[in-house]
């Protein structure tokens, strides 16, 4: 996983509530068996509208997505996170996220930043006024800053530490293999198993 410390870039405002992962990447694009190459299909249906905000020239090269509440609802497809990452996004700022999507982001290193709705609105307004405005998402300081906006965000220490270092969860868990083995030894023997064929 790519570490995330401090990122500065331009932003694009996607001012819609309840953006589900079927919109972020429609199911017909989930057939690839690789982890890369999903960027071109990001918001595939919405991009058929030539006016769609992500395709406006003034937002070309944006690396921070400003979004509405309940971003990433619906399907658990991590492809949604891969598509955003592949399209160059490093952070998403929204008033709230769907649980599975938020979790998937932290596994990949795309930073989900939850801010009060008013702060997200202020950032969207700032970017609407000046699309070249640069925002800084500082995970070390847990703070987002932009023109006329400076707002702290919450993230638990463990997830923050893991993202700052870009640590692999599996590697961390395998440090506790003895505990896993001990747990397995105490499970009731009648629990269901499916022996390999």
């Amino acid at each position, binding site marked *: 996983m790519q570490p995330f410390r401090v990122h500065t870039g331009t932003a694009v405002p996607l001012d819609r509530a309840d953006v*589900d992962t*079927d919109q972020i990447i429609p199911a017909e694009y989930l*057939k*690839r068996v*690789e982890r890369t190459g999903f960027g071109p299909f990001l918001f595939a249906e919405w991009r058929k509208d030539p006016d769609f905000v992500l395709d406006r020239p003034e937002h070309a090269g944006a690396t921070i997505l400003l979004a509405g509440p309940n971003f990433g609802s619906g399907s658990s497809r*991590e492809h949604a996170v891969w598509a955003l990452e592949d399209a160059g996004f490093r952070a998403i700022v929204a008033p*709230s996220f769907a649980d599975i999507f938020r979790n998937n982001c932290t596994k990949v290193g795309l930073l989900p930043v939850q801010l009060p709705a008013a702060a997200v609105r202020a950032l969207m307004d700032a970017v609407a006024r000046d699309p070249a405005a640069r925002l800084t998402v500082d995970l070390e300081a847990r703070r987002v800053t932009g023109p006329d906006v400076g707002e702290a965000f919450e993230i638990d220490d463990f997830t923050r530490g893991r993202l700052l270092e870009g640590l692999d969860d*599996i590697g961390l868990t395998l440090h506790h293999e003895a505990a896993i083995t001990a747990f*397995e030894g105490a499970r009731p023997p009648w629990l269901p198993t499916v022996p390999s064929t």
Partner: protein
Amino acid sequence: MGRTLPEKIWDEHLVRRAEGEPDLLYVDLHLVHEVTSPQAFDGLRMARRGVRRPDLTVATMDHNVPTAPGPEDPISVQQMDALRRNCEEFGITLFPTGHIGQGIVHVIGPQMGLTQPGLVIVCGDSHTSTHGAFGALAFGIGTSEVEHVLATQTLPQRRPASMAITVEGDLPPGVAAKDVILGIIARIGTNGGAGHILEYRGSAIRSLSMEGRMTVCNMSIEAGARAGLVAPDDTTFAYLEGRPHVPTGQTWEQALDRWRSLATDLDATFDREVTIDATALTPFVSWGTNPGQTVPIDAVVPEPTDESMTRALAYMALTPGTPIREIRPDTVFIGSCTNSRIEDLRIAASVIRGRRVHEGMRALVVPGSMLVKAQAEKEGLHRIFQASGFEWRDAGCSMCLAMNADRLAPGERSASTSNRNFEGRQGAGGRTHLVSPAVAAATAIAGHFCTPNDLGVDLQSATGA
């Protein structure tokens, strides 16, 4: 102080707890399908890791599979071949297409008796919450987490808050489990369950069959909750007894003892409690583009009160004030992990028996598993569907998410027993209305939204329920 059922299951699966870190939970059953697993297996190979417990892992093909003969999409075939190779390489049991055990991952787990009370069950699919119907703690995960479970049989998780959803009273005739969950989502909202595990309680929930409880738990994610469950009871035990992976003899008694302890303690408290009057529920139809945008079938398309409603109405090409019964779908889809089990098919068949699908309407039934299909054929249900003009298909996710050839054309409108009415969910430009199997079946006959009662069908006597 007492504990809630989700807390009890959580605590029983704690491998490790450390201050400031997520809990490490043991996973009893990991279900795998072709779409969210290839990158996880690749990750294992790159890190030279194996699958820790192939004997607690089961795979099937469901999202991509064709449900009718015809040319196969070469990219789908590639994804299914990848699953086959991965299962061979890592020693995982697979139910591929063509196998009688194949089906939607959330239908085959319960049918094999692998889904049992008190287990922690995960799958790279948000509808894993379905298994909560048995009093299991079951939730959807992303592909990175799939890889984590394959490698370690555990997951680091923060314990969610708990929410009691109590549905009290007798369900009115014609109100299905689907209507119960649509009513719950309408009440708490599509994000109302975020950060919570839901426990469905109350006399209306107790009165539901296992199939009905699965329908309710299935759509927990549509209320924003990763997991929803129902405490196991005699209905649960009767469903489980005799299924392939369920213990027998003396071990069955041991299992029962344990399962009977799986209930929320009387003095336990939930972080949030919601009570719903079952007697006030009606058949629901969704009008918008998320599962919270529903109205009773007797209602009209609502006036928009915000931007999101305006956008949804435009996408759905609906005019506020239009009676729901005047909306005419082009396609009726009976299937998906929400409503494709034998009981769903029995109800739909009882509605359409001796009637014809409305002229010009496309109607299809996609059983949830090949075993459900076989059971339905044993009962002669396929002949009822076919005589009415329904297509009778093989098992798969099919038109719920349109990853195979079963999809809506742009602008086409469906009455669908599935779980999501998102824009383009059933095919780009398609317009989805979520309904129960009974309403879907009646709508196929009438050509517009309606209930079995509108057709003069008395469901209770028709199904013998």
